[in-house]
């Protein structure tokens, strides 16, 4: 990401953001920098470039997981590549739950699919809650080493939950 997405939308660097305000600002900025509004070819090119930055920034902030990743990077925390830590039993648990989910999908057992999706959605809320708590306690512009590690651990875990939800049908 070239630019700080928070800066583009004039928002405070915070995990909790006003999503309605973000969307309104996005619509406004997209209209303002729409390349068709410019006649001068250089201005048109600049507008096209800025429009695509606005898009990237919007995608980064709109989704909770990607916003947390973006904010952690801005606050000097470790990236996924730098710190792959996970709670020790998480992969085993995910493997078992995903096998259970796969069997339920194959058997068209909608009740079990719903139960497991609900479990994943509750896990997601729990991780997001913990992330929000740690971010809200960060004082200053950067995370401490321990805050960075904790946030990264929760984000790494959350990815497996999101992946499960991405890869399972909403109903069977």
């Amino acid at each position, binding site marked *: 990401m070239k630019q700080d997405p928070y800066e583009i939308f004039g928002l405070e660097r915070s995990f909790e953001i006003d999503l309605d305000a973000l969307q309104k600002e996005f619509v406004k900025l997209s209209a303002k920098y729409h390349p068709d509004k410019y006649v001068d070819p250089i201005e048109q090119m600049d507008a096209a470039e800025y429009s695509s930055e606005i898009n990237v920034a919007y995608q980064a902030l709109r989704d909770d997981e990607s916003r947390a990743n973006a904010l952690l990077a801005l606050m000097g925390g470790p990236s*996924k590549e730098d710190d*792959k830590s*996970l709670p020790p039993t*998480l*992969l*085993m648990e*995910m*493997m078992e739950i*995903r*096998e259970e989910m*796969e069997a339920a999908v194959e058997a068209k057992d909608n009740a079990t699919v719903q139960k497991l999706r609900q479990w994943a959605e509750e896990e997601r809320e729990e991780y997001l809650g913990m992330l929000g708590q740690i971010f809200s306690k960060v004082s200053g512009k950067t995370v401490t080493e321990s805050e960075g590690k904790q946030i990264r651990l929760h984000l*790494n875990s959350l*990815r*497996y*939950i*999101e*992946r*499960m939800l*991405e*890869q399972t049908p909403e109903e069977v």
Partner: protein
Amino acid sequence: MAYSEKVIDHYENPRNVGALDKAAQNVGTGVVGAPECGDVMKLQIQVNEDTGVIEDAKFKTFGCGSAIASSSLATEWLKGRTIEQAKEIKNTEIVNELSLPPVKIHCSVLAEDAIRHAISDYEDKNK
């Protein structure tokens, strides 16, 4: 991005999907994950205790086509090898065999990781 024919073949007809008895003395199990995308992979080997040769290998992968193909190919390559030969399997060989594009290299890393974990689990059990 188009998948190579070999990836599609392994994805549509994965070899050796399933499970071996995790508790058996001659079975090694590796469960690994890809932090980039959240894919999870389980790979198991069953070793003939007299010859040290891997006589069976199974996998279960929840992930993209490349992750499934990488682990399917890995189980094919593992069968008939000794533990020492199995340790030599490199993710780059998987990349070449399946023509994986750069954005999917981590899938082959995941498969190599799973092999390592399965072998070390087997070795820990049989010290």
